[in-house]
């Protein structure tokens, strides 16, 4: 029987990244993926003939530049196309656009508020500095302030020294970002409702929180860390959809000798004493390795694959308390023609960027109010892109695919999710969007609706949370996923975690996978 140094459970992009780094260091690695394809939530599928959808996650920005570099992802097929604008259509037929050209952007913002146009640059510069301040934390395993381990204390001392080195002004700003709500923070800067609505939307993605909930300002910063070619705040679309990100990482892993097996569902991690020894596949096959790395989220890893009875009680209860609360859904449309927005009816550069249905903070907060009490937002927030506008091969010539990220669609829906409720969500989304783009409804050739329950069922993300657990401060950094167990290790010897449920969290970032590999290899990240 073939022997492996490490088995990775789950072929999501983090699992693949972890495998690639371990294989690159000469380890014999096997990746086991339950589905028929790798990628987890970063995958592309031809759902309707001729139309390719990034079914779940749909943009790239947080993918760590060092991973692109070290795994030579461009050589393995990764090509990221820039998303250069954000259009926020407004109910009155007006719009707010944010363009990548500085002059064009300033002029458009000034059309709504001259003050905002001026504040925008300063705000951008501050968040740039804050992103720089936080950035060193993303690439390293988070030290545990409660630990007496000298290595952790050394890291903590370095981190403390680093933060002391920040200018006082920046430290104050950072503290505000860590404690305030996105809406309150933005109120300090801007007056325009559409601008505040659109900016605050990045503060709520993937959480069951509203823009007025404290702590959401941090999530805003988290999304500001998107970095492409060293340029902060640049979002992109991977040619071929987000599945091509996973495919490139998988190709890199295989080039380094990693073995990837699909349709291989792991049902159990075998623990002998306090040491993980093997995984058991659905068919009953046992595969042994001294190191097992789980890319699954903390709940599935510990309460599912390992079993509570094998865990220290305190740890088990921390994992039980770790919050998921999926709140977002996807609607993917195949379109016979491009959407014609009332505010900008002709096809133009705005269709090559993001389109955001976020006319005001109130709009988002109301959307949250519905979800807070277990209902689908009657008027949801949406983040839309048209991948076929950037990469024509995503749809037949002249036709288009539209990717709609929808929030809120709470996992804990009153009465539970059903086929009827799924279609109700789809109708709500299409009806709302048709108010802004009247030709939309008539242009739909196929509609795919993915609820949080579907995300859980298909990809295995608990409660359909796209970040493997909410990105809220009580479960970030050294608390992710549980106090004292934030360094990719677990109370079970030989069992590691490498998913977004560990530091630094979700997004198609790959940092958790890389950090976990570094931890396993005993190398400094």
């Amino acid at each position, binding site marked *: 029987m073939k022997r492996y140094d490490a088995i990775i459970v789950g072929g999501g992009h983090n699992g693949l990244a972890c495998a690639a780094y371990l294989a690159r260091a000469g380890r014999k690695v096997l990746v086991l993926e339950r589905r028929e394809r790798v990628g987890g939530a970063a995958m592309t599928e031809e759902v309707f003939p001729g139309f390719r959808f990034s079914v779940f996650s749909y943009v790239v920005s947080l993918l760590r530049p060092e991973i692109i570099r070290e795994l030579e992802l461009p050589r393995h097929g990764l090509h990221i196309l820039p998303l250069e604008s954000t259009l926020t259509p407004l109910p009155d037929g007006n719009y707010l656009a944010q363009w990548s050209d500085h*002059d*064009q952007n*300033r*002029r458009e913002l000034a059309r709504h508020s*001259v*003050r905002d*146009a*001026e*504040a925008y*640059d*300063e705000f951008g*510069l501050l968040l*740039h*500095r804050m992103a720089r301040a936080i950035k060193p934390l993303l690439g390293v395993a988070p030290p545990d302030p409660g630990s007496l381990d000298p290595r952790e204390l050394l890291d903590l001392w370095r981190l403390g020294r680093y933060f002391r080195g920040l*200018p006082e002004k920046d430290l104050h700003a950072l503290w505000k970002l860590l404690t305030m709500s996105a809406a309150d923070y933005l109120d300090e800067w801007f007056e325009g409702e559409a601008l505040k609505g659109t900016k605050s939307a990045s503060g709520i993605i993937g959480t069951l929180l509203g823009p007025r909930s404290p702590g959401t300002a941090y999530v805003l910063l988290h999304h500001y860390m998107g970095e492409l070619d060293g340029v902060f705040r640049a979002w992109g679309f991977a040619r071929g959809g987000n599945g091509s990100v996973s495919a490139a990482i998988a190709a890199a892993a295989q080039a380094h000798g990693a073995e990837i097996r699909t349709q291989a569902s792991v049902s159990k991690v075998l623990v002998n004493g306090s040491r993980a020894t093997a995984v058991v596949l659905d068919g009953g096959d046992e595969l042994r390795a001294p190191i097992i790395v789980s890319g699954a989220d903390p709940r599935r890893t510990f309460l599912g694959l390992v079993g509570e009875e094998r865990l220290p009680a305190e740890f088990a209860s921390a994992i039980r308390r770790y919050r998921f609360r999926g709140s977002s859904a996807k609607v993917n449309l195949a379109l016979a023609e491009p959407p014609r927005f009332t505010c900008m009816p002709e096809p133009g550069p705005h269709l090559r960027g993001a389109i955001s249905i976020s006319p005001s903070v109130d709009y988002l907060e109301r959307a949250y109010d519905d979800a807070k009490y277990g209902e689908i937002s009657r008027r949801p927030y949406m983040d839309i892109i048209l991948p076929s506008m950037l990469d024509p091969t995503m749809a037949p010539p002249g036709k288009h695919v539209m990717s709609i990220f929808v929030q809120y669609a709470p996992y804990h829906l009153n009465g539970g999710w059903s086929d009827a409720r799924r279609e109700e969500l789809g109708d709500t989304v299409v009806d709302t969007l048709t108010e802004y783009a009247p030709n939309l409804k008539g242009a739909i050739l196929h509609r795919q609706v993915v609820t949080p329950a579907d995300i859980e069922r298909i990809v295995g993300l608990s409660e359909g949370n796209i970040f493997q657990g909410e990105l809220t401060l009580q479960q970030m950094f050294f608390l992710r996923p549980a106090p004292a167990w934030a360094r990719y290790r677990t109370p079970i010897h030989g069992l590691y975690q490498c998913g977004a449920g560990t530091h630094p969290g979700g997004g198609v970032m790959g940092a958790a996978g890389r950090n976990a590999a570094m931890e396993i290899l005993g190398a400094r990240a």
Partner: protein
Amino acid sequence: MLKTTPFHERTAALCVSHAWRRWAGYVVASSYELTHEREYHVIRTAAALFDVSPLYKYRVEGRDAAKLLDLVVTRNVQKAAVGQVLYTPWCDHAGKVIDDGTVARLDESTFRMTSAEPNLRWLQENAAGLDADISDVSDDIAALSLQGPAAGAILAALGAPALKYFRVAAAIIDGIAVTVSRTGYTGDLGYEIWAEARDAVRLWDAVMDAGRPYGIMPAGMLALDMARLEAGLILIDVDYVPARKALIESQLSSPYEIDLGWTVSLEKERFNGRDALAAEKARGPAWQFVGVEVEWNSLERLYSEVGLATRLPNATWRMSVPLYADGGQAGYATSGGWSPLLKRYIALAHLRSRWARPGTSLEMEMTVEHRRKRASARVVKKPFFDPPRKRA
């Protein structure tokens, strides 16, 4: 799309070079003719007409208008007479320069401020509790700059009143209500004419018609850049990083560090950055902004060593060029070029104070035939060109 200025109808027809550049979201001509040479010389021999409409312009009025501006800028605005124009920088609370521009006192309680960057929000924030009304009139006011020895005669022909250096007055030109200020960015005799945007094309025609007998020419930004270098005038984003755009501490500049210490009115009880500036004045600035001249013989030698005749830049360069003294880096030049008028290779530079005294020997980095060399240079007094007619 970029904005076009109120003069675009005329400037576009004249711009045979099709060389445009951006300025504050507008397009303006880099040069009208195929090369900028004649446009440069006309500044020093007759009169050049520049479209300077992209400047940001604010109208500040009210009982506390002078008080507000006094709080914002470093110069003493309360002391300014009606009809006076002040050139001044303004600072953040740490005494670092945010921007520079002019403040014109149009009457007792009305001012016009010009700036390179938008400042509406900054003015509004400083106006809390004051009786001062601030309006952004950037798009409403068209501006022409008429620069050169014939500028005064042309304005007289247009019936505008004579003005002293850095004074402003209302005038009627061809039936158009304008204000005229004796200001400019060339270090020459010059005026700026401010009018309602809707009157712009008529104003352009009137000035061009009156100027034709005197040899007037429209001139673009390349010519202007050469003239302002000779005049030793600092340029934001090129010669200094404004505080709002600085990413790191070392990119910030105080007025003392960019040779604008003369504008800092420490006798004023309160203004943005006062305490920091008082402290800096007491200890002396770490950096100074000076003129540098490259020695011809040294330059010629570097070229003759590789068998070439000396090559000179034909336009002002804008980049950071290291300067050395006593075996180490003493600073960096940020603008430089050959002055066809002075026949000198000149540059504006930031130097650590100990090497900033006029006469100090330096070396400037030069790339000669793909190789980095050093040419001898020395610190010289600014402005490089300062004709008596500028103030006469």
